């Protein structure tokens, strides 16, 4: 493992992609490293000097009041934010040591490593099977047997296989909201990502479905790095290893979740988690 890291670092230095200091600092279990990220929507300065390091196989929660930039930051990590035409960024984000904001890096490739689950369940108006097979198909897998295996594995991975195995050919919109959201998670697993971004994945769900998704996140973190934006502070406390508190486009505090919730260093964090604003 360490040998591999050294090799990677050397090749990075040779390519001139990263300076020596950060190459040495980057250790094998960092997935996303954000340096001095600034982002504007037209004239609006939405993210200000963001510096965050996100570790592999951990759950990182991003909390903060509405409009603080937490969803924007999440969508920057797979560059979905670029769907807004007026977006402009400065600074750097590296994914496993490679810069992702360059024009030369292929956004389609990034998104196969970094999957995303959205706020509102958004299955395609297709069958359950075709929803899961969508990702593998666009990446060129045509073999029916392999697709069958991926579909089963992904649905099992999202703990929804037993509920849908007899109705794979039925329209995904026949499922309940909570099932739809787990289907969307399964659909993301099907592209075999390393990271899963979740943008308030339970805000449209009832408490029981929410609990199921939270349990699922705990299971998934064994194999995936998860970054979850949430409005629900109890949820962040329950499921995350680290928590970042965003306010007005800045990271106020980023630490181990227990520390954030028990002894935050910044007054604003304390005010927010104790419910004094937001």
């Amino acid at each position: 493992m360490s040998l591999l890291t050294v090799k990677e670092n050397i090749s990075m230095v040779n390519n001139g992609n990263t300076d020596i200091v950060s190459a040495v600092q980057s250790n094998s279990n960092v997935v996303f490293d954000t340096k001095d990220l600034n982002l504007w929507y037209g004239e609006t300065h939405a993210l200000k000097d963001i510096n965050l390091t996100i570790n592999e196989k951990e759950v990182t929660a991003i909390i903060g009041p509405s409009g603080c930039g937490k969803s924007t930051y999440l969508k920057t990590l797979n560059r979905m934010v670029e769907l807004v035409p007026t977006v402009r960024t400065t600074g750097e984000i590296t994914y496993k040591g490679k810069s992702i904001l360059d024009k030369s890096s292929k956004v389609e490739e990034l998104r196969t490593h970094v999957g995303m689950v959205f706020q509102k369940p958004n299955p395609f108006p297709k069958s359950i099977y075709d929803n899961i097979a969508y990702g593998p198909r666009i990446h060129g897998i045509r073999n029916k047997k392999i697709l069958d295996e991926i579909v089963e594995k992904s649905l099992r991975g999202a703990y929804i296989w037993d509920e849908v195995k007899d109705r794979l050919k039925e329209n995904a919109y026949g499922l309940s909201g909570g099932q739809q959201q787990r289907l969307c998670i399964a659909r993301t697993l099907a592209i075999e990502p390393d990271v899963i971004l979740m943008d308030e994945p339970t805000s449209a769900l009832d408490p029981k479905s929410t609990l199921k998704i939270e349990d699922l996140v705990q299971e998934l973190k064994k194999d995936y790095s998860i970054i979850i934006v949430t409005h629900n502070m109890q949820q962040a406390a329950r499921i995350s290893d680290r928590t970042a508190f965003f306010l007005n486009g800045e990271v106020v505090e980023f630490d181990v979740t227990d520390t954030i919730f028990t002894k935050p260093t910044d007054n604003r964090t304390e005010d927010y988690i104790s419910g004094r604003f937001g």
Partner: protein
Amino acid sequence: MKYIDAEQVSKRMGTRIAKNNLLKSLFFMATLFGLIVLAILIYRVVVDSVGWIDWNFLTGKLSTAAERAGIMGAILGTFWMMLVVAPVTLILGIGTAIYLELYAKKGRFQAIIQTNISNLAGVPSIVYGILGLTIFVRAMEMGNIILAGGLTLSLLILPIVIVAAQEAIRAVPGFLSEASYGMGATKWQTIKNVILPAALPGILTGAILALSRAIGETAPLTVIGIPALIIPFPEGIFDKFTALPMQIYYWTLDSSLVAEYANLAAATIVVLLLLLFVLNSAAIFIRNKFQQRF
């Protein structure tokens, strides 16, 4: 202290309900007006055509003698022309809509094109006839053949198809394409697998309504110079031809000379109406079949 006075409310209740009922009957009468006019029109046409629609009329060749006249040539002419109009309009129309909605950068250039397309939809059809005559018949030396007529009608309905397809594409919810992009799909993969299937019912409805309009168009064809009387059946898109609305036009025009021509025109109108009815039913069927639930 209540702001809404219960006594005042019950006092005004009668007027409010009366107003509601009055407007309801006004709107109903507006609907009735269109229905009555349409019913009278159809009644007159059907009465005039009774006894004139038979097998010989449907399959026969044109003739100056009213008893022997048939409209097979015009039916075939319309059929071949639609075989030109449908693919040309669908490909150009959907292609343009995809480009404008999904690829073009929103800006001045796009806004200018958009305004022009909307304006073109309002240009009188005879102007398109002049355009077709200038470009296809004369400049490209096609002559007044089916291809020239079909291309002219394509130009005429293209703006309608583009606008309908744009609206259908715009109506596809953004969360569907986001899901596709989020899995690493390219723009074209997203368009092909998510956006077009969801927009298809709307696009097809617009396209078939536009085709119905093309089938009934007469003015552009008169300008192109479709002959009044042509005996041989057209066998392909490079033949000279006549079409159903042209036949109606000429027979109505000449009914002052031969009274029976009015009956022939009426019979042709009934055939054209039936054709349109079949086409529109197909549109509804297709829309329901491809309608997606989300």
